[in-house]
Every structure is written in structure tokens, then in C-alpha cells.
């Protein structure tokens, strides 16, 4: 079984310019006619928008099933549906079965034609001036790591749609079984990583450190194995409270000593396992169980502290922030962190939206994670001592912060001043990271981000927060 790389389409961004069709026909059609393009943008007069006719490289393709000549097949690697001219009998059954109009008969070429994604470099996506088309290659993660064993038991007791569970399963399967895993008290052991009443929840050696001493216990474990000539990965999956509040001393000490530890902080911005109380990582204005709403109080009154930045100043072997909305980036950073933990302290900070504690529908989880990044609320970057800080994606054109805030129940109550505070904080962080990204060797200094509030329409607060 294989996943698919796909060309994704956002109708809202499409202005119907047709550049994609021109680009496709230039490389694919025999006569250069846009009518022969494998991608077609079609006006939908009822909706007043544009629609896409393109092969989706379906996971369970009708065209392949309907083909009586076995001319269409789904490739194991990348999931592309390919067409074999020698087998095709021109019956056109495939065109009848496809609901996306992704395969069509070309009179000019005298055969069916369909998108082959230009061998992994689709020209239509390159040509699109509005970024309505994007090439999603999540299949590469699946294809590369999909066969790895999930090292947690199937039945973890997380909340529905839990983002942290995604982080747990993906990180540990990649890191592998030659690992001792520390999961300090919080959601992770709460959903059963260490297990209950004598039953284990993980297929690698796993334990509850204290909330306070994760990095210290891993220090002892890693050093003892190293002393015995064994290279065992000492890994933590810790919440933001255990990492940045009460556990910060041990974390800082281990980082300063350069202990060889892979420390993954799963940041859900508070003590979500114990009922969503405030932590040092909780953002300004957020409702939590200990920063409640009342006549005298309107959520948290302090900004969050930037834990990954604090870790960077320890000059760790590797520090990065990541998000489950950007899995390829996350995997790339995980790989680097794992490699770095072989010779020094590696700290990976993963933003992990919490459906229960942040108050949003579980189906929105990845969208919340994505919007946090796209608005610069959570900036993705990485740091290596010899390369300095590098931004993982541009931060000079963020979406308005309210696009993120309005997704979350914990921000529902914000007034204009509070939103302004958050916008200012995000702008300040954006500027700071732009400047920090200029520090490293060979990294061009990025232009400081423009103040966010200036570029966006200042409509009424209630309107801006309306879902």
C-alpha cells in the first residue's frame, strides 16, 4: 500500500488566469494547445468560482479498476497512476468512471491523457501565480517511513483527534526501538505511554520520570550505556510544563552540560492533562482553568515564554520548532535532532494544538496547527551552532493573526486591546526571528517583518472573531 503525492487546489485563491494550462500544454501537448493540457480550470457559473479538472492520483482509483486491459496502474512509490500505451485498447471506460475529469481522450493525440505530475516537478504548480495550486508530497514520508513499526500500543487513551498522539507515534517510530523513552507526567503517560497497573503502553523501555527531572534521569541512562560501549538513544516526550516550567532546571542543566539527549517538547500551551491550567507556555489572553474569565479577569495576562529560543541560547547541538501541519519539515528536523543527540543535546519543540483545552472541534486540529504557523503565531525555525538560526519558511507575508485566533474557543472572549496585544507580540517575535535568522554564517539577513496591523483591514472585533 502506498500513499499519494498530489496537486492540491484552493479555489479561493484561483483567479482563472489559465497559466497552469499553458504551462502543462507547453510540456505535454503535441501541438501546444491549452485545450490539450492535462489540467483544466473550469468556471463554475453557479458558484462564481473556478473548478479543477485534474487527476487526483486517487488512493482507490476507479479508472484503474474499470480498465479492462490493465493499462492503468497505481505505482507503489509516490502513488502515481500511470498509463501504458501498449496495453491500452482505447475503450475510454476510464474516462467514464472518473468523477474528477482527471483522464480524458485527446483527439489531437488519439489516446487518453492524464497528469503524470511531470516526474515530481509539476509545471502547473510552478506557473500558478496565486499559489492556488500546491504540490503536496506527504507521500514521501509515508513511502519512506510507512513500514516502520508504530512503537506505541494501538489503544492509547487520548482525546479524540489528539495532536500529541500524532507527535508521539510519528517521532518514536522514526527514532526506533534502540531507545529509552522518558514520558514525564502529563497527557502522554496520561493516555497510557507507560501503561496502567503493570501493563506497558510502549514497545521500547519507557518510564515516568518525575515532572521535574526528565533530562537528569536521561543523563544517567545515556552516560551509563555509553560507559558500557552501547549507543542507546535517550529520548524524552515531555509537555511544555514539564519542560519549561517545573522541569526547566534539569533541562537547562543537561543542555548546558551537552548531555546526549533527544528532548522533544510537545507544546500544548498548558497543563492539559490535569484540566487545562496555565503554564509558562500559555499565550497572552488565553482562557485556561487557572486564568478564567470573570468580571475582573479576561484570560492570561502575560505572554508565553519562548522555550525553544531559551534552549537555543544554551547553544545546544540542535534546536528546532516544528508542527504537525508541516510533516515533511517535522520529519526532517526530527532526523537532524536524532543525529545531533548522538553528540550533544537536541531539543525539538513541536506545537501541539489541544482540542479539549483550547476548545475547538477535533477535525480542525491540523488546520489550527497550520494557521498558527501561517500567521507567525508559531514560527518554524531551526538552529545549529555552526549555522545559526534558519527560518523554515518565509515569515514576511503572514496571514492576519485573527485568522488563527478565531479558530480557538480559548480566545473567543478577546477584546480589541487584547487582540492588539497579541498582534504586537507576534509582530515583535516576527521581527526578532527575522533578525536572528541573519546571525548565522551564510544566511542572508531577512527584512524585518512589516507591522502586521498596518497591512490588514481593521474591522470590528466581533466580526473578526466570528468563525
Amino acid at each position, binding site marked *: 500500500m502506498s500513499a499519494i503525492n498530489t496537486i492540491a487546489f484552493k479555489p479561493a485563491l484561483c483567479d482563472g488566469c489559465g497559466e497552469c494550462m499553458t504551462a502543462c500544454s507547453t510540456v505535454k501537448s503535441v501541438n501546444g494547445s491549452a485545450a490539450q493540457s492535462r489540467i483544466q480550470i473550469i468556471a463554475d457559473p453557479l458558484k462564481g468560482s473556478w473548478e479543477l479538472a485534474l487527476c487526483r492520483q486517487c488512493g482507490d482509483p476507479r479508472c484503474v479498476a474499470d480498465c479492462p486491459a490493465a493499462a492503468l496502474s497505481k505505482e507503489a512509490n509516490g502513488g502515481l497512476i500511470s498509463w501504458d500505451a501498449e496495453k491500452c485498447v482505447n475503450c475510454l471506460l476510464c474516462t467514464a468512471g472518473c468523477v474528477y475529469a482527471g483522464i480524458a481522450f485527446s483527439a489531437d493525440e488519439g489516446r487518453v491523457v492524464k497528469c503524470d505530475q511531470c516526474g515530481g516537478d509539476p509545471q502547473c504548480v510552478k506557473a500558478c501565480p496565486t499559489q492556488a495550486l500546491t504540490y503536496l508530497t506527504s507521500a514521501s514520508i509515508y513511502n519512506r517511513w510507512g513500514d516502520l513499526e508504530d512503537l506505541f500500543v494501538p489503544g492509547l487513551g487520548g482525546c479524540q483527534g489528539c495532536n500529541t498522539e500524532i507527535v508521539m507515534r510519528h517521532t518514536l517510530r522514526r527514532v526506533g526501538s534502540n531507545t529509552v523513552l522518558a514520558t514525564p507526567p502529563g497527557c502522554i503517560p496520561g493516555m497510557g505511554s507507560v501503561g*496502567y497497573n503493570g501493563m506497558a503502553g510502549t*514497545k521500547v*523501555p519507557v*518510564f515516568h520520570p518525575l515532572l521535574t527531572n526528565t533530562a537528569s534521569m536521561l543523563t*544517567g541512562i545515556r552516560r551509563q550505556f555509553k560507559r558500557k560501549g552501547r549507543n542507546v538513544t535517550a529520548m524524552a516526550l515531555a509537555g511544555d510544563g514539564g519542560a519549561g516550567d517545573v522541569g526547566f532546571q534539569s533541562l537547562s542543566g543537561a543542555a548546558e552540560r551537552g548531555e546526549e539527549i533527544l528532548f522533544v517538547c510537545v507544546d500544548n500551551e498548558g497543563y492539559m492533562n490535569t484540566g487545562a491550567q496555565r503554564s509558562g507556555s500559555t499565550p497572552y489572553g488565553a482562557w485556561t482553568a487557572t486564568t478564567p474569565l470573570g468580571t475582573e479577569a479576561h484570560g492570561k495576562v502575560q505572554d508565553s515564554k519562548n522555550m525553544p529560543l531559551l534552549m537555543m541560547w544554551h547553544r545546544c547541538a540542535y534546536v528546532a520548532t516544528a508542527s504537525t501541519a508541516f510533516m515533511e519539515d517535522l520529519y526532517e528536523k526530527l532526523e537532524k535532532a536524532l543525529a545531533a543527540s548522538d553528540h550533544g543535546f537536541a531539543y525539538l519543540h513541536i506545537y501541539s494544538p489541544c482540542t479539549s483545552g483550547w476548545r475547538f472541534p477535533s477535525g480542525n486540529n491540523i488546520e489550527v496547527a497550520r494557521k498558527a504557523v501561517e500567521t507567525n503565531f508559531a514560527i518554524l525555525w531551526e538552529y545549529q551552532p555552526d549555522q545559526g538560526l534558519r527560518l523554515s519558511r518565509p515569515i514576511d507575508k503572514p496571514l492576519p493573526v485573527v485568522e488563527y485566533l478565531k479558530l480557538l474557543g480559548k480566545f473567543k472572549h478577546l477584546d480589541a486591546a487584547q487582540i492588539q496585544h497579541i498582534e504586537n507580540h507576534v509582530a515583535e517575535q516576527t521581527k526578532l526571528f527575522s533578525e536572528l535568522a541573519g546571525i548565522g554564517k551564510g544566511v542572508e539577513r531577512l527584512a524585518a517583518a512589516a507591522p502586521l496591523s498596518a497591512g490588514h483591514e481593521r474591522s470590528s472585533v466581533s466580526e473578526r472573531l466570528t468563525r
Partner: protein
Amino acid sequence: MSAVLKPKNKVLVCDGNEAAAWGVVLSRPDMVAGYPITPQSSLVEYLAQFIADGVLDAEMVEAEGEHSVLSVLQGAALAGGRTYTASCGQGLAFMFEPYFRTPNLRLPIVMSIVTRDGISPQCVWGGQQDAMTVREVGWIQMFCETVQEVLDTTVMAYKIAENHSVMLPVNVNHDGNYLSNGIVRIELPDQDEVDQYLGDKDVNWHVALDPQRPMAVDPLTGGSAGTGPALFTRYRQGQCEGMQNSLGVIVEAHKEWAQRFGRSFAPLIEEYRLEDADYAIITIGSMAGAGKDVVDAARNRGERVGLIKIKTMRPFPIDAMAAALNKVRAVGVVDRSVCFGWNSGPVFQETLAAMYYARERIPCLSMIGGLAGADLTEVHFERAVRETAKLLAGPCPRQPIWLNAQD
């Protein structure tokens, strides 16, 4: 710090902290972690120097605080390492969270407590308040009387802790200032003999964090339903059994030590000139030396007084104490710390409890001295003997006598 001597030199002139460090060297730990605190600091300095000089082949973790010190050692022990640290006073207080957990994980870690009084008033001097305050947490606790005993007990502690019927951490306690800094002549045991005495390390056969033996360490256990509470209860029961098993193991460890090295120490309770005594004073730690001198002097005057010294405080040697109490008609207990809830000292409280198993209830007086570095001299013990003798004929006061209050 004195010049580092190689183990081949059999005689040393050193203080208790260096003696403890030599005990550690001879025990060949895999990992030592430390954080400085008066009056323990020179102990970890010695160890750091020993490692720097190649006298000791061990990992040294200079942690950022005592909390991490013990946590590092827990990790090392779970990965199979023999481990050591030392602390005291506020350091021990700060360490309490992992300290509390170490016996519950059944990790045979050895830690010296260079005993120190507790703040406030702000104080950096000796006293046993730190060790006594944590006596109920599940560590085995032994108190040393002399610098030589510090070294010897440090080695013995590993044999006791790692015994399969025990598997519990051990505190080897020596008095801050008096033993930590008092310099005397001691003898260093032969390394080969110590190796034979201790045998192979076998630290994590029962619980491990090792990819070659994957297991979940410490799953959530308990609650009001299912098998959890029973599992938890049996676990605690096993811990208490291990603690009781250690009494015999401590005795055997001392016996074998005497056979191999020719030095014997009372493993649980020392009875000093008790056979024909009418009454006795009870002591713990380094003060026993002054106490014994005063007992000798009183004996020369014809008074039938003896001394009972506690070496093993946890587990409390109830039977040995009851047997000692059976030999006298009154006791006076000199504590170097305070039991706030009983308006007395903790050893006094323990003595009362053990007396339930003695033949009869005898008068028992609490005396408290040696706090905050105060010396307990012959003058104080003469008073202790005098006050205890009064119990034979008169009433037994309910209030403690504060020995250094008028110094």
C-alpha cells in the same frame, strides 16, 4: 585537599569526607554525581579529583542541583550502574522529590549524608536534623561514629544495598564538622579484598531501562477499581519486607567485614559496658566517643552506667534495642536533632516505641544537644549521666533537657 594517595598506601591521615571518598573509590561505582553544599563539599571535590587523576574510573556528573544529582543516579542505576553521591541539609531537602522515590524504585544507590542542621535560623553547621527528618522515606540509614567507620561503612553499604533480598538505597551518615572535617589516622582496605567482598555488580536485574530488556518502569498503579490497589499494596509490602531483610544482611555484612579486614563495628546497636549496668545513656553518631569516655569515668567512680549506641536507624533494630533496654532500669537519650511533634528527639521517640517490646516500661529521659555545630563534650555527657541516674529514684520529667542552651 590533601595530596591524593594511591590505594596501595595502606594508611591515611584524613578527615571523614576524604575517608568516604576513599570508600567510594574502593567500591568502584560507575557514576558519581554531585553538587556542593557545606559541610559535604570537600567530599565531592575529592571524588572529582580522584576521577581527574585516574584513581577512580567513573562518570562524574556535576549537576545543576541536588534534585538532578539523585535523578541522574536513578537513571544510571536503571541502566545498570553502581552509583554514589553525598549531600546534606538544604541539599537533601531540595533532593527530596527523587529521594522519596529512590527506595520505591528499589534502586541500590548509596549516598552519604554529611549531617547538618536545618535552617532557619540560617545555619551551615552540623546536626542530624536533615537525616532524621527523612528517616521515614524508606532509605536504610546508618550513622557512623568514627572516620574509619565512615570509610568501612561506605563500602559495606553497597553490599547491603545490592543484596537481592534488600535492593534498597543506603544513607551512610557522618556528622557534619566533627566527622567531615576531623582529621585522624585511618587504614585503607586492600582493593582486591574489597573487590572480593563486594562481588560483581548486579544493580538492575529486577528493574531496568534497557532496550535489550524492554519494560515499562513504573506504570500508573492504584485507583479505586481493578487490580491496581492490590498491586500497589503488595509492592509496598515487598518494600517493607526488603527493609526487614536488611537487618540480617547488615549484620552479615559487618561480620564478613570483620573477618576480612579485622575491624568490627556493632552493626545495629552497640552495647557499651551494659552487662551489669543500672542505667544507660543512648547516643547516635560521633558523640558516642565523648559519651563512652564519661561512662568510663563514671565507672571508675563506681557508678553502674552503660551506653547504647545506635548505628542503624532505619530499619530501626527493634529487637536489638529491646534487648539492650532489658538490661537496665532507666535510660537517658541524647539526640542531635529535634522531633517537633513529640517535644523531644527522634531517637527518644524510637526508644519509647521499641520499649513496647522490652520486658518492662522503664523511665526514659530526652536530652537534646549538639545542634548547629555545638560540641557535645564530657561536660554535657556528665550532666546526661547525672540526669539519667536521677530517674532510678525520682520522677521522670516530661520535658527534654536542652544540653547546649546555657553554653
